[in-house]
C-alpha cells in the first residue's frame, strides 16, 4: 500500500509543479490541483521516466545473458503497455499545445502577427478580439481552423505544410492567406448574437451567410503585421 501511496503523491506533486499559474493572476479555486492538461503532462512525464528506467534495466539483463520470466513481463510492459500510454498522452498534449498562440508564434514568419495580436494599441481585428478576450484561448487556431473534427485534422495538415515552408524558408512574401477567409468562422460565434443582429440588416445577414459578402471587407484588416519583419531570414539578408 505504501509504495502505491508514494506513487500517487509523486504524481500529484509532479502535476502541481507543472501547473501553470493563472494567466492574469486570478486566484485559483480552493483545492486547485491543476488542469487536465497539467495532469496529462505530469503523468506522461512520470510514465516516460519510469519506462526509460525499465528499458535500461532490461537492456542490462539482456547483456548479462538472458531474460527471466519476470523480465519478460517487464519487457512486455516496457515495450507495449507503458509506451502506448506515453505516446497517447504526448499526442494529446502536443495536439492541444499546437493550438496555442505561443506555438504559432514559434516560427519567425509569425512573430509580427503575434506582436500585432498582443499590441493593445492595435485596432486590427485580431488585436481587438485578443484584448477584449472575445476568444478565451488559442486565438490563432480559433479563427484559422474550421470547427469540428475534420477542421482539426485539416488544421494540423496545414500546420505541417507551414512547418515545411518555415524549415525551408520557402514561404512567399508578403504572407497571404491561402484562400478567401470563410465567413463561417466568424458566424459560428457572431451569428445570432444580439449586437450582430442589431447592426446587420436581414438582407446583409443573408449575403454573409451565403458567402457573397465577406465579413473582412468591412471589419478588416485582420492583421497589421510588419511584412519586412516577416521576411524569411534568407530573403531578408539579400
Amino acid at each position, binding site marked *: 500500500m505504501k509504495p502505491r501511496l508514494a506513487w500517487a503523491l509523486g504524481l500529484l506533486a509532479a502535476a502541481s509543479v507543472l501547473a501553470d499559474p493563472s494567466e492574469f493572476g486570478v486566484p485559483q479555486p480552493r483545492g486547485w490541483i491543476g488542469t487536465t492538461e497539467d495532469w496529462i503532462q505530469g503523468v506522461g512525464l512520470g510514465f516516460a521516466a519510469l519506462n526509460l528506467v525499465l528499458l535500461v534495466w532490461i537492456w542490462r539483463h539482456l547483456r548479462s545473458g538472458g531474460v527471466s520470466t519476470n523480465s519478460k513481463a517487464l519487457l512486455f510492459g516496457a515495450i507495449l503497455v507503458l509506451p502506448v500510454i506515453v505516446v497517447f498522452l504526448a499526442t494529446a498534449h502536443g495536439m492541444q499545445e499546437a493550438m496555442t498562440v505561443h506555438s504559432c508564434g514559434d*516560427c519567425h514568419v509569425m512573430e509580427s502577427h503575434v506582436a500585432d495580436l498582443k499590441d493593445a494599441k492595435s485596432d486590427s481585428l485580431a488585436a481587438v478580439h485578443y484584448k477584449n478576450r472575445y476568444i478565451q484561448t488559442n486565438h490563432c487556431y480559433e479563427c484559422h481552423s474550421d470547427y469540428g473534427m475534420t477542421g482539426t485534422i485539416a488544421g494540423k495538415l496545414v500546420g505541417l505544410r507551414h512547418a515545411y515552408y518555415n524549415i525551408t524558408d520557402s514561404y512567399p512574401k508578403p504572407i497571404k492567406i491561402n484562400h478567401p477567409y470563410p465567413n463561417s468562422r466568424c458566424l459560428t460565434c457572431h451569428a445570432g448574437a444580439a449586437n450582430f443582429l442589431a447592426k446587420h440588416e436581414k438582407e446583409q445577414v443573408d449575403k454573409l451567410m451565403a458567402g457573397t459578402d465577406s465579413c473582412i471587407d468591412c471589419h478588416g484588416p485582420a492583421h497589421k503585421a510588419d511584412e519586412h519583419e516577416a521576411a524569411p531570414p534568407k530573403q531578408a539578408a539579400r
Partner: protein
Amino acid sequence: MKTDRSNPTVLSERGARRVRLAIVFTAVALVLGAALLIKETAYVFTAFMFLGPTLLFAAIVLLGWTILEELREKRVL
C-alpha cells in the same frame, strides 16, 4: 528462435538482437514523447507525430515476432 534447453529464458542471438532493437526504438519514441511533454515546439511536435508512433509500432512488431518464434520453438503454437 533457438533457446537453450537447460535454460529456456536465454534468447537466441537473433532474438536478443531484435529485442535490443525494440528497446532502442521504444527509447527513442519515449525521448521524443518526453521532449514534447516538456516543451512543445512545431519541430518537436512534427518529429514526434512522424517518428513516435512509427517507432513504437516497429518495436511492438519486433517484440511480437520474438514472442511468436519462442512459442513456436516450444511448440506451443
